[in-house]
Protein backbone atom coordinates (compact mmCIF):
# COMPACT_ATOMS: atom_id res chain seq x y z
CA UNK A 1 0.00 0.00 0.00
CA UNK A 2 1.02 3.65 -0.40
CA UNK A 3 2.85 6.13 1.79
CA UNK A 4 0.53 9.11 1.52
CA UNK A 5 0.95 12.76 2.38
CA UNK A 6 -2.53 14.17 2.88
CA UNK A 7 -2.62 17.97 2.73
CA UNK A 8 -6.01 19.10 4.04
CA UNK A 9 -6.58 22.27 6.07
CA UNK A 10 -9.98 21.32 7.48
CA UNK A 11 -9.61 19.58 10.85
CA UNK A 12 -12.70 17.41 10.67
CA UNK A 13 -12.42 16.48 7.01
CA UNK A 14 -8.72 15.77 7.37
CA UNK A 15 -9.41 13.37 10.19
CA UNK A 16 -12.13 11.59 8.18
CA UNK A 17 -9.97 11.24 5.05
CA UNK A 18 -7.02 10.04 7.10
CA UNK A 19 -9.11 7.36 8.79
CA UNK A 20 -10.63 6.21 5.49
CA UNK A 21 -7.26 6.00 3.73
CA UNK A 22 -5.69 4.17 6.67
CA UNK A 23 -8.53 1.68 6.76
CA UNK A 24 -7.75 0.99 3.10
CA UNK A 25 -4.27 -0.09 4.21
CA UNK A 26 -2.25 3.05 3.49
CA UNK A 27 0.19 4.91 5.75
CA UNK A 28 -1.07 8.45 5.99
CA UNK A 29 0.76 11.59 7.13
CA UNK A 30 -1.61 14.52 7.44
CA UNK A 31 -0.58 18.19 7.23
CA UNK A 32 -2.75 21.31 7.13
CA UNK A 33 -0.53 23.88 5.45
CA UNK A 34 1.78 24.16 2.45
CA UNK A 35 4.82 24.97 4.60
CA UNK A 36 4.32 21.94 6.87
CA UNK A 37 3.77 19.79 3.77
CA UNK A 38 7.14 20.84 2.34
CA UNK A 39 8.79 20.00 5.65
CA UNK A 40 7.06 16.61 5.68
CA UNK A 41 8.32 15.82 2.17
CA UNK A 42 11.81 16.64 3.33
CA UNK A 43 11.58 14.21 6.25
CA UNK A 44 9.47 11.36 4.85
CA UNK A 45 9.46 9.15 1.80
CA UNK A 46 6.14 9.86 0.08
CA UNK A 47 4.55 7.97 -2.82
CA UNK A 48 1.35 9.95 -3.27
CA UNK A 49 0.39 13.49 -2.41
CA UNK A 50 -3.35 14.02 -1.91
CA UNK A 51 -3.82 17.74 -1.98
CA UNK A 52 -6.51 20.35 -1.35
CA UNK A 53 -5.31 23.40 -3.24
CA UNK A 54 -7.34 25.90 -1.23
CA UNK A 55 -5.22 26.61 1.82
CA UNK A 56 -4.43 29.61 3.97
CA UNK A 57 -1.23 31.62 3.47
CA UNK A 58 0.19 29.52 0.60
CA UNK A 59 -2.22 27.67 -1.68
CA UNK A 60 -1.78 24.23 -3.21
CA UNK A 61 -0.71 25.52 -6.61
CA UNK A 62 2.18 27.35 -4.98
CA UNK A 63 3.00 24.18 -3.07
CA UNK A 64 3.05 22.12 -6.26
CA UNK A 65 5.31 24.56 -8.11
CA UNK A 66 7.60 24.53 -5.10
CA UNK A 67 7.64 20.71 -4.96
CA UNK A 68 8.27 20.33 -8.70
CA UNK A 69 11.21 22.71 -8.47
CA UNK A 70 13.00 20.02 -6.45
CA UNK A 71 14.21 17.22 -8.75
CA UNK A 72 14.19 14.71 -5.89
CA UNK A 73 10.41 15.13 -5.53
CA UNK A 74 9.48 14.86 -9.19
CA UNK A 75 8.50 11.21 -8.76
CA UNK A 76 5.83 12.01 -6.14
CA UNK A 77 2.41 11.30 -7.63
CA UNK A 78 -0.12 14.06 -7.17
CA UNK A 79 -3.86 13.67 -6.80
CA UNK A 80 -5.82 16.86 -6.26
CA UNK A 81 -8.76 16.36 -3.92
CA UNK A 82 -10.32 19.76 -3.88
CA UNK A 83 -13.25 22.09 -3.59
CA UNK A 84 -12.36 23.58 -6.97
CA UNK A 85 -13.99 22.01 -10.00
CA UNK A 86 -11.52 20.28 -12.31
CA UNK A 87 -12.60 22.46 -15.25
CA UNK A 88 -11.02 25.40 -13.43
CA UNK A 89 -7.62 23.73 -13.27
CA UNK A 90 -5.64 24.86 -16.28
CA UNK A 91 -4.57 21.98 -18.60
CA UNK A 92 -1.11 23.42 -18.89
CA UNK A 93 -0.78 23.64 -15.12
CA UNK A 94 -1.90 20.01 -14.85
CA UNK A 95 0.81 18.90 -17.28
CA UNK A 96 3.54 21.11 -15.85
CA UNK A 97 2.79 20.03 -12.30
CA UNK A 98 2.31 16.35 -13.09
CA UNK A 99 -1.19 16.22 -11.62
CA UNK A 100 -2.50 12.71 -12.23
CA UNK A 101 -6.09 13.26 -11.21
CA UNK A 102 -8.37 16.01 -10.08
CA UNK A 103 -11.11 14.83 -7.73
CA UNK A 104 -13.91 17.25 -6.93
CA UNK A 105 -14.65 16.78 -3.24
CA UNK A 106 -18.42 17.12 -3.47
CA UNK A 107 -18.56 14.30 -6.06
CA UNK A 108 -15.95 12.00 -4.56
CA UNK A 109 -16.88 9.45 -1.93
CA UNK A 110 -14.31 8.07 0.51
CA UNK A 111 -14.32 4.79 -1.42
CA UNK A 112 -13.55 6.65 -4.65
CA UNK A 113 -10.75 8.56 -2.94
CA UNK A 114 -9.16 5.30 -1.82
CA UNK A 115 -9.53 3.87 -5.33
CA UNK A 116 -7.81 6.91 -6.78
CA UNK A 117 -4.74 6.22 -4.65
CA UNK A 118 -4.57 2.66 -5.97
CA UNK A 119 -5.14 3.81 -9.55
CA UNK A 120 -2.37 6.38 -9.28
CA UNK A 121 0.12 3.58 -8.60
CA UNK A 122 -0.54 2.10 -12.04
CA UNK A 123 2.02 3.23 -14.59
Amino acid at each position, binding site marked *: MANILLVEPDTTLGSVYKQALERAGNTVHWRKT*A*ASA*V*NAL*DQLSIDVLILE*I*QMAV*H*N*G*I*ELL*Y*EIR*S*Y*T*DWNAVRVVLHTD*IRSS*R*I*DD*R*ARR*DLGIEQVLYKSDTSLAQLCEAVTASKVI
Partner: protein
Amino acid sequence: MKQVVVVGIVLARTNYGEADRILTVLTRDHGKVRLVAKGVRKIKSKMAGGIELFSVNDLTYTAGKGDLGTLISSRLKRNYGNIVTDIQRTMYAYEVLKSFHKITEDAAEPEYFDLLNLCLQALDEAVPIQNIEVWLAVHLLSIGGHTPDLAHDTQGQALAESKCYMFDVEHMTFAQKDQGAYQSQHIKLLRLALRASSPQKLSLVQVAQPVGTSVNALCRQMLRLHGYHA
Protein backbone atom coordinates in the same frame (compact mmCIF):
# COMPACT_ATOMS: atom_id res chain seq x y z
CA MET B 1 34.52 40.54 -4.72
CA LYS B 2 32.35 43.25 -6.16
CA GLN B 3 28.81 43.35 -4.84
CA VAL B 4 25.95 44.13 -7.16
CA VAL B 5 22.67 45.55 -5.88
CA VAL B 6 19.61 45.06 -8.03
CA VAL B 7 15.85 45.26 -7.96
CA GLY B 8 14.47 41.98 -9.25
CA ILE B 9 11.52 39.67 -9.63
CA VAL B 10 12.17 35.95 -9.17
CA LEU B 11 11.05 34.01 -12.24
CA ALA B 12 11.99 30.52 -11.15
CA ARG B 13 13.65 28.51 -8.41
CA THR B 14 15.31 25.12 -8.68
CA ASN B 15 17.26 23.04 -6.25
CA TYR B 16 21.05 22.90 -6.38
CA GLY B 17 22.88 20.35 -4.36
CA GLU B 18 21.83 19.42 -0.84
CA ALA B 19 21.06 22.79 0.63
CA ASP B 20 21.13 25.46 -2.04
CA ARG B 21 18.67 26.93 -4.52
CA ILE B 22 19.20 28.59 -7.86
CA LEU B 23 17.06 31.64 -8.45
CA THR B 24 16.46 33.04 -11.89
CA VAL B 25 15.79 36.72 -11.43
CA LEU B 26 14.60 39.32 -13.91
CA THR B 27 16.18 42.60 -12.93
CA ARG B 28 15.47 46.04 -14.17
CA ASP B 29 18.98 47.13 -14.99
CA HIS B 30 21.02 43.95 -15.25
CA GLY B 31 18.81 41.78 -17.39
CA LYS B 32 18.17 38.23 -16.27
CA VAL B 33 20.56 36.81 -13.69
CA ARG B 34 21.00 33.41 -12.08
CA LEU B 35 21.93 33.40 -8.41
CA VAL B 36 22.79 30.68 -5.93
CA ALA B 37 21.02 31.14 -2.62
CA LYS B 38 23.13 29.11 -0.21
CA GLY B 39 21.64 27.07 2.59
CA VAL B 40 18.02 28.12 2.05
CA ARG B 41 16.74 24.61 1.73
CA LYS B 42 17.61 24.03 5.37
CA ILE B 43 15.72 26.95 6.80
CA LYS B 44 12.71 26.08 8.87
CA SER B 45 10.14 27.81 6.76
CA LYS B 46 10.95 26.85 3.23
CA MET B 47 8.35 29.15 1.83
CA ALA B 48 9.66 32.14 3.75
CA GLY B 49 9.73 35.61 2.32
CA GLY B 50 12.67 37.51 0.96
CA ILE B 51 13.01 35.40 -2.15
CA GLU B 52 9.41 34.60 -2.70
CA LEU B 53 7.72 34.57 -6.04
CA PHE B 54 5.23 37.31 -6.96
CA SER B 55 7.28 39.98 -5.27
CA VAL B 56 9.81 42.67 -6.05
CA ASN B 57 13.01 42.31 -4.07
CA ASP B 58 16.17 44.25 -3.40
CA LEU B 59 18.92 41.72 -3.99
CA THR B 60 22.63 41.94 -3.31
CA TYR B 61 24.90 39.42 -4.95
CA THR B 62 28.46 38.85 -5.98
CA ALA B 63 29.18 37.96 -9.56
CA GLY B 64 30.79 34.55 -9.90
CA LYS B 65 32.71 32.70 -12.59
CA GLY B 66 30.40 32.03 -15.48
CA ASP B 67 26.81 33.11 -15.30
CA LEU B 68 26.04 32.09 -11.73
CA GLY B 69 26.24 34.75 -9.02
CA THR B 70 25.95 34.22 -5.26
CA LEU B 71 23.12 35.84 -3.40
CA ILE B 72 24.30 37.71 -0.31
CA SER B 73 21.11 39.29 0.93
CA SER B 74 17.56 39.99 -0.09
CA ARG B 75 14.91 42.35 1.16
CA LEU B 76 11.28 42.25 0.22
CA LYS B 77 10.39 45.50 -1.49
CA ARG B 78 6.85 44.79 -2.55
CA ASN B 79 4.84 41.64 -2.12
CA TYR B 80 1.92 40.94 -4.42
CA GLY B 81 0.29 38.76 -1.82
CA ASN B 82 -3.28 39.06 -3.11
CA ILE B 83 -2.45 36.94 -6.13
CA VAL B 84 -2.45 33.75 -4.10
CA THR B 85 -5.88 34.40 -2.59
CA ASP B 86 -7.31 33.16 -5.88
CA ILE B 87 -6.37 29.89 -7.55
CA GLN B 88 -7.03 31.13 -11.11
CA ARG B 89 -4.84 34.15 -10.56
CA THR B 90 -2.14 32.00 -8.99
CA MET B 91 -2.08 29.68 -12.00
CA TYR B 92 -2.03 32.58 -14.43
CA ALA B 93 0.74 34.32 -12.50
CA TYR B 94 2.95 31.23 -12.78
CA GLU B 95 2.23 31.12 -16.51
CA VAL B 96 3.29 34.73 -16.80
CA LEU B 97 6.54 34.08 -14.96
CA LYS B 98 7.21 31.09 -17.20
CA SER B 99 6.51 33.19 -20.31
CA PHE B 100 8.87 35.91 -19.21
CA HIS B 101 11.52 33.31 -18.41
CA LYS B 102 11.29 32.08 -21.98
CA ILE B 103 10.96 35.49 -23.61
CA THR B 104 14.06 36.83 -21.85
CA GLU B 105 16.25 33.85 -22.75
CA ASP B 106 18.47 35.89 -25.03
CA ALA B 107 18.07 39.42 -23.79
CA ALA B 108 16.10 41.31 -21.15
CA GLU B 109 15.61 45.02 -21.64
CA PRO B 110 14.31 47.09 -18.72
CA GLU B 111 10.90 47.22 -20.43
CA TYR B 112 10.38 43.52 -19.70
CA PHE B 113 10.87 44.07 -15.98
CA ASP B 114 8.43 47.00 -16.02
CA LEU B 115 5.89 44.99 -17.97
CA LEU B 116 6.12 42.03 -15.62
CA ASN B 117 5.86 44.30 -12.60
CA LEU B 118 2.72 45.98 -13.95
CA CYS B 119 1.25 42.61 -14.76
CA LEU B 120 1.81 41.28 -11.24
CA GLN B 121 0.44 44.49 -9.80
CA ALA B 122 -2.71 44.12 -11.87
CA LEU B 123 -3.13 40.52 -10.74
CA ASP B 124 -2.65 41.67 -7.16
CA GLU B 125 -5.43 44.22 -7.63
CA ALA B 126 -7.79 41.57 -9.02
CA VAL B 127 -7.99 43.12 -12.47
CA PRO B 128 -9.84 40.56 -14.65
CA ILE B 129 -7.36 38.09 -16.10
CA GLN B 130 -8.79 38.52 -19.59
CA ASN B 131 -7.88 42.23 -19.54
CA ILE B 132 -4.38 41.52 -18.29
CA GLU B 133 -3.88 38.92 -21.03
CA VAL B 134 -4.82 41.30 -23.84
CA TRP B 135 -2.82 44.17 -22.40
CA LEU B 136 0.25 42.02 -21.83
CA ALA B 137 0.07 40.46 -25.29
CA VAL B 138 0.00 43.74 -27.20
CA HIS B 139 2.76 45.26 -25.10
CA LEU B 140 4.97 42.21 -25.45
CA LEU B 141 4.47 42.33 -29.19
CA SER B 142 5.21 46.02 -29.16
CA ILE B 143 8.51 45.63 -27.28
CA GLY B 144 9.54 42.95 -29.72
CA GLY B 145 8.75 45.15 -32.68
CA HIS B 146 5.73 43.10 -33.74
CA THR B 147 2.95 45.60 -33.08
CA PRO B 148 -0.10 44.72 -35.17
CA ASP B 149 -1.25 47.38 -37.62
CA LEU B 150 -4.43 48.71 -36.04
CA ALA B 151 -4.91 51.59 -38.46
CA HIS B 152 -4.84 50.10 -41.96
CA ASP B 153 -5.80 46.87 -43.65
CA THR B 154 -3.66 44.78 -45.98
CA GLN B 155 -4.67 47.03 -48.89
CA GLY B 156 -3.54 50.14 -47.06
CA GLN B 157 -7.11 51.33 -46.49
CA ALA B 158 -8.07 52.78 -43.14
CA LEU B 159 -9.89 50.21 -40.98
CA ALA B 160 -13.59 50.94 -41.18
CA GLU B 161 -16.28 50.86 -38.52
CA SER B 162 -18.77 48.93 -40.62
CA LYS B 163 -16.51 46.31 -42.18
CA CYS B 164 -15.54 42.78 -41.15
CA TYR B 165 -12.01 41.47 -41.20
CA MET B 166 -9.88 38.41 -40.78
CA PHE B 167 -6.38 38.78 -39.33
CA ASP B 168 -3.29 38.06 -41.41
CA VAL B 169 -0.99 36.87 -38.63
CA GLU B 170 2.05 36.70 -40.87
CA HIS B 171 1.78 40.35 -41.83
CA MET B 172 0.19 41.39 -38.55
CA THR B 173 -2.54 43.24 -40.37
CA PHE B 174 -6.28 42.96 -40.75
CA ALA B 175 -7.60 41.90 -44.16
CA GLN B 176 -11.08 42.83 -45.25
CA LYS B 177 -13.39 39.84 -45.51
CA ASP B 178 -17.16 39.50 -45.60
CA GLN B 179 -18.24 37.48 -42.56
CA GLY B 180 -14.77 37.96 -41.13
CA ALA B 181 -14.40 37.20 -37.42
CA TYR B 182 -13.23 40.66 -36.40
CA GLN B 183 -15.10 43.92 -36.36
CA SER B 184 -14.68 47.42 -35.00
CA GLN B 185 -15.13 46.44 -31.34
CA HIS B 186 -12.26 43.92 -31.57
CA ILE B 187 -9.98 46.47 -33.18
CA LYS B 188 -10.96 49.14 -30.64
CA LEU B 189 -10.09 46.82 -27.78
CA LEU B 190 -6.65 46.19 -29.25
CA ARG B 191 -6.10 49.92 -29.71
CA LEU B 192 -7.19 50.65 -26.15
CA ALA B 193 -4.92 47.93 -24.82
CA LEU B 194 -1.97 49.34 -26.71
CA ARG B 195 -2.64 52.86 -25.50
CA ALA B 196 -3.28 51.85 -21.87
CA SER B 197 -0.24 52.27 -19.66
CA SER B 198 -1.46 49.50 -17.36
CA PRO B 199 -4.05 46.72 -17.32
CA GLN B 200 -5.94 48.72 -14.69
CA LYS B 201 -6.49 51.53 -17.21
CA LEU B 202 -7.83 49.02 -19.72
CA SER B 203 -10.27 47.77 -17.10
CA LEU B 204 -11.93 51.16 -16.99
CA VAL B 205 -13.54 50.20 -20.27
CA GLN B 206 -16.36 47.70 -20.32
CA VAL B 207 -15.74 44.91 -22.79
CA ALA B 208 -18.29 42.32 -23.83
CA GLN B 209 -17.13 38.83 -22.90
CA PRO B 210 -17.23 37.33 -26.45
CA VAL B 211 -15.16 40.26 -27.80
CA GLY B 212 -12.58 39.85 -25.05
CA THR B 213 -12.41 36.10 -25.59
CA SER B 214 -11.84 36.30 -29.34
CA VAL B 215 -9.31 39.13 -29.02
CA ASN B 216 -7.44 37.03 -26.48
CA ALA B 217 -7.43 34.06 -28.84
CA LEU B 218 -6.06 36.32 -31.58
CA CYS B 219 -3.36 37.66 -29.28
CA ARG B 220 -2.30 34.13 -28.33
CA GLN B 221 -2.00 33.33 -32.05
CA MET B 222 0.18 36.38 -32.61
CA LEU B 223 2.37 35.56 -29.63
CA ARG B 224 2.78 31.94 -30.74
CA LEU B 225 3.84 32.98 -34.23
CA HIS B 226 6.49 35.27 -32.83
CA GLY B 227 7.78 32.67 -30.39
CA TYR B 228 6.50 34.23 -27.20
CA HIS B 229 4.60 31.38 -25.65
CA ALA B 230 6.31 29.17 -23.03
